[in-house]
């Protein structure tokens, strides 16, 4: 097999246990072979130190961080929708979008601070600005966004300062898009295999998911006469979410595996069911009150479950040395093969 590449050199094996862990046979997904033929691939062996994880799993708490991802996404896309709806003269949709954006952003700040090991030091985030740290960049997205969105929702509730309200809505709309997608960079910019490997895809998973949730919630809350833009955004967002998640799940690499198995797999399957059902319901019955509320809630639930699934898949991939060692070995082997083919 891959002797010498993925196994210890010179025949040395651990004396007190299994020599190395043989990965289970895995069905290669998305092969697209006709006639339902499934290719079974014999997996390479890999070695570990007593099965210990190599990287440290994130210390982020659940449900704090998945909820933060969900609320930030829903609030961000709602703020964008609200600002545009305001400019196009839809007061009912604008109001609903501002409540979702304001409530979501304030709650997400709460969850983020609660997740800190030293919550009383949350202002230390504002000491520096570092573009190499997605959390630092995110702080400078979240702070103005939540301030603007929260204030806009508050004056909307109180009915004060209409011109300030429009300004606040536009500011939150400007920060809404980055707010919804920077969280994907937050996860991907780690050594966690199942997050980092999809670093160009996760922003679209999160962006689509954010639009499904934000559009869904706005559709459920806005008056029926004005909810059409929200419904359209929710439908397009749900479609993008389903497509982008498919791209992450069906990758040939072993790091796609955590998205299928265990708790993360359950979350992802439930998310897909909710989002697909919500999508269908929004298309067919989104013009009725009941249909709008039901599909909006389903799409939001799908988005929430997607965040939990992605979070859990990353945690699972960090806890198993397989997902760290095998892709790195494959990378080394590919590099070696590339070098040889060049020199030949």
């Amino acid at each position, binding site marked *: 097999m891959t002797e010498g590449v993925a196994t*210890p*050199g*010179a025949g*040395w*094996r651990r*004396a*007190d246990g299994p020599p190395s862990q043989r990965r289970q046979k895995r069905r290669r997904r998305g092969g697209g072979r006709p006639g339902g033929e499934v290719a079974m691939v014999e997996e390479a062996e890999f*070695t570990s130190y007593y099965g*210990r*994880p*190599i*990287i*440290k799993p*994130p210390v*982020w708490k659940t449900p704090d961080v998945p909820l933060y991802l969900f609320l930030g996404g829903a609030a961000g*896309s709602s703020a*964008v929708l609200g600002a545009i*709806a305001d400019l196009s*003269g839809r007061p009912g949709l604008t109001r609903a979008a501002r409540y979702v954006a304001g409530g979501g952003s304030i709650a997400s700040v709460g969850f983020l601070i609660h997740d*800190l*090991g*030293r*919550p009383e030091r949350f202002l*230390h*985030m504002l*000491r*520096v600005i*570092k*573009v*190499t*740290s*997605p*959390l*630092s960049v995110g702080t400078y997205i979240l702070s103005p966004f939540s301030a603007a969105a929260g204030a806009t929702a508050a004056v909307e509730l109180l009915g004060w300062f209409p011109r300030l309200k429009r300004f606040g809505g536009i500011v939150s709309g400007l920060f809404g*898009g*980055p707010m*919804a*997608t920077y969280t*994907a*960079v937050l996860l991907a*910019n*780690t*050594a*966690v295999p199942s997050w980092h490997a999809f*670093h*160009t895809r996760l*922003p*679209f998973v*999160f*962006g689509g998911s954010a639009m499904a949730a934000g*559009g869904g919630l706005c559709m459920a809350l806005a008056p029926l*006469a*004005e909810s*059409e*833009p929200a419904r*359209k955004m929710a439908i397009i967002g749900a479609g*993008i979410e389903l497509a982008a998640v498919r791209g992450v799940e069906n990758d040939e690499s072993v790091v796609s595996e955590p998205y299928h198995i265990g708790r993360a797999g359950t979350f992802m399957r439930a998310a897909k069911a909710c989002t697909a059902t919500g999508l269908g319901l929004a298309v067919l019955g989104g013009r009725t009150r009941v249909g709008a509320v039901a599909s909006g809630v389903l799409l939001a639930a799908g988005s929430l479950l997607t965040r939990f699934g992605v979070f859990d898949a990353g945690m699972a991939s960090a806890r198993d*040395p397989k997902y760290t060692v095998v892709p790195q*070995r494959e*990378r080394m082997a590919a590099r070696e093969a590339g070098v040889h083919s060049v020199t030949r």
Partner: protein
Amino acid sequence: MTSISSASPAFTGRDPDNRLFGPLPDVQGEAGYDDDHPARVGFFTDTSVCIGCKACEVACKEWNLLPMDDSHGARDVIGLSGMSYDNTGQLGANSWRHVAFIEQSRTVDLPMPAVGLPGATRQDSGPSAANATGDSLAHAQQSSVLNAEALSEFDPQTGQTGADKQIRWLMSSDVCKHCTHAGCLDVCPTGALFRTEFGTVVVQGDICNGCGYCVPSCPYGVINQRKDDGRVFKCTLCYDRLTDGLQPACATACPTQSIQFGNLDELQARADARLATLKEQGVETARLYGRDENDGVGGNGAFFLLLDEPEVYGLPPDPIVTTRDLPAMWRAAAAGAAMIVGVALSAVLGSRRPR
């Protein structure tokens, strides 16, 4: 002296000075220190002479006043992990040195005993040996003690197939690598992690707010959060001792010079010479780990001489600093944000005007 504009390569993707990835001859200069900064220091951990005494672990704990260890592994009531003599388990917030123990065996084809040796005779003429008198049986057993094949019946460490097995122990004192491109340092949002004038990476305890972002960003799984404290901790390469002209505690305590402290370029030369010596002596599996400044983290400040593949010791075989790919991530996130604005805009414009 290069000017220190904030790390713009993360946004632009253009990185001619290798500020995100690649070899970096002057890490302190890149971090903003003047040209008269001290030389970059580090550890060369030569695991081929490590005896597994754990003096480094103890010295580190004593000097840095670290609480009891926090390895979250499965252990029994008296605190034993079952992982050979390793009851520390892993590097963490309270274990800044960790000695790994790996017991290995390999099959070696010893020359088969020639005809006439007592062991061979005994095995070949099994039935007749059973009929032998007590005297000759005792004689056969006594002489067979010296025979490798006969030993295999009594020694659980040797095989049963006629081939013999060799046993060896790998012991290695792991530590923070003080990477040239440190993931933990790159992602820290508070500036609590910083590059010292010695080129090492240190956490400022009074700044850290326990966001935990550095923990999964370390490709080696070194830094961790102290649960009851909330902040993160890792090896400082004894920053306090360095500023007073002392060596780090672990290197001082090491009785076999397995842990060598010094200027990084001197250590690298010493390691290259040591590797050449070992290769000359026929240690075919010896290799340097973290020595190559063209690797995924730009080389390590603390590097190792290993006798087996890195993952055997719990080290990643091909670590890459996560921020190498950050420009691509920011581009994807910007595209995603633009997508949201575009979808929202077209959703509004494509809808009927409300009555």
